[in-house]
């Protein structure tokens, strides 16, 4: 068995503090030991990934291995951020999972067009959120190979 990807950092882009809290709780509930970092909108997300602004000091740290992305965020929304990341020569390799309340067909089509790796509608109960995080963790950190070595800015 592959060794669990303990070194992989998860980045959650989510403007809602309650949802950040819930996702963190769900990670804890799944006993996923991964570091989780938070950004609150699309601009912060890009700053984080490109080590700009408040994130300049992180220049040496590895990039996140997985991004959980909310679609409706202030300043720069998830759709715009997704487009920029997926057209960036290095950042485009990072798997992105959209986690949103939107069930709109056009959001699903458009984000897959932009190269999203999975699209998940936020579950209504905490129990199903835990279940989803469990499955995600198992899939992305145990089953699939991630392009870990190449993920440097």
């Amino acid at each position, binding site marked *: 068995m592959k060794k669990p990807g303990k070194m992989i950092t998860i980045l959650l882009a989510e403007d809602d503090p309650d949802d950040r809290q819930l996702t963190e*709780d769900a990670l804890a509930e799944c006993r996923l030991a991964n570091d989780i970092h938070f950004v609150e909108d699309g601009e912060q997300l890009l700053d984080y990934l490109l080590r700009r602004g408040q994130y300049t000091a992180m220049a040496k740290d590895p990039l996140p291995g997985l991004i959980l992305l909310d679609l409706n965020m202030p300043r720069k929304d998830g759709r715009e951020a997704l487009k920029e990341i997926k057209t960036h020569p290095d950042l485009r390799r990072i798997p992105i999972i959209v986690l949103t309340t939107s069930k709109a067909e056009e959001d699903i089509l458009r984000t897959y067009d932009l190269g999203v790796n999975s699209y998940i509608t936020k579950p*209504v109960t*905490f129990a199903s959120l835990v279940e989803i995080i469990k499955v995600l963790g198992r899939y992305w950190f145990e089953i699939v190979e991630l392009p870990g070595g190449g993920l440097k800015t």
Partner: protein
Amino acid sequence: MNTPGPTQNDGTAAPSSTPGQPRETTSSTEFVCRDRSQPTEEALRHSELRFRTLIECLPQRVFFKDRNSVFLFVNSIFAGDFGLKPDALVGKSDLDFFPKELAEKYRADDKRIMDQHKAETIEEMNIVGEMARYVEVVKAPVVDNNGEVMGLLGVFTDITDRKMAEGTLKDFAARLERSNRELQDFAYVASHDLQEPLRKVSVFGERLKAKCSEVLGDEGKDYLDRMQKATGRMQGLINDLLNFSRVTTKSQPFAAVDLNEVVREVTTDLEARIEQVGGRVEAGQLPTIEAEPLHMRQLLQNLIGNALKFRRPDTKPVIKITAVIGKHPPAPGSRSTAPREMVRLSVSDNGIGFDEKYTERIFQVFQRLHSRAEYEGTGIGLAITRKIVEHHSGEITAKSKPGEGATFIVTLPVKQRKADERL
């Protein structure tokens, strides 16, 4: 407006019914005057009299001008606008009676019409003293035997009332459309944005129960259960409202829909439920109509689903779907006068039925005839069904008696009108 009949070069109407006179044939856009075999003096006098009477009786303002747009003749009602007798205008021009800019526009129109030998109908402003009005003017060149333009005939009608009414109507339509759109946006946005906090209440309630259930005690847990059931119900209501508003906000283009196919699909979707209650769906031959495919599916799904739901406990549900096509007279107020080909779709069941005094009620949003304990659901199904039917310019009604089953009758056009043909 019809182009007036031929006139003579002196401005008198050609007496088309005078004995011995050949009828004149003229182009419809100019007035050709011909020499004619010597009319008797009396015939001329009669003709003149008829002409005067006609011109004076017309509700329109009438004027004749010469090649230089100088008045040769006006009727009393035209002169009356200026508080004058007709003779007082003869020899004068628009410049003497109207504001300069307006008079110049009139004269430019006159010149163009006379130069081009072509009558025109013009909608324009007309200002007399303090009074401004909209008028519709027909101006036509008067042409002599040699094809020379001698002058111009003008007839105009005050259309101010019509213009105002058109404007008011346009305003109303625009306001109605705006308010409809706002209402739709409101329903959609409200239901969408209301979901978020509700989800939080539900999720944190769940967390509270999981983490603090010892502290809460039995009574506390019971309260929490009730709160969570209520949020669940509210989520259901909001979802229903969202679906209801989507009928029009997310509408798709019309296409040819084979209703036999739709019934087959819906029956397959509901197969498990139909088998579970030992039910049967019997569909006759149904037509293909122009409609929104997803709407037709939802319509039949709701009607068949309802029939399964409101079955008699002791009777296996049998649902019969039939269709007849017929001509219906156009709806009152409709622009089209042609009868429309309509399909009348009936969905009958042998279920519990209902008292017909509730017929209107069952099609309203969130209206129910039973308690939630008896039958699940929020009461949106038939409201959505009616909205779909109305979106297709159709009608839905129901016939029933308590305990004797119900028949839902949907009338839909076979072909949809294009947007501009609709009311």
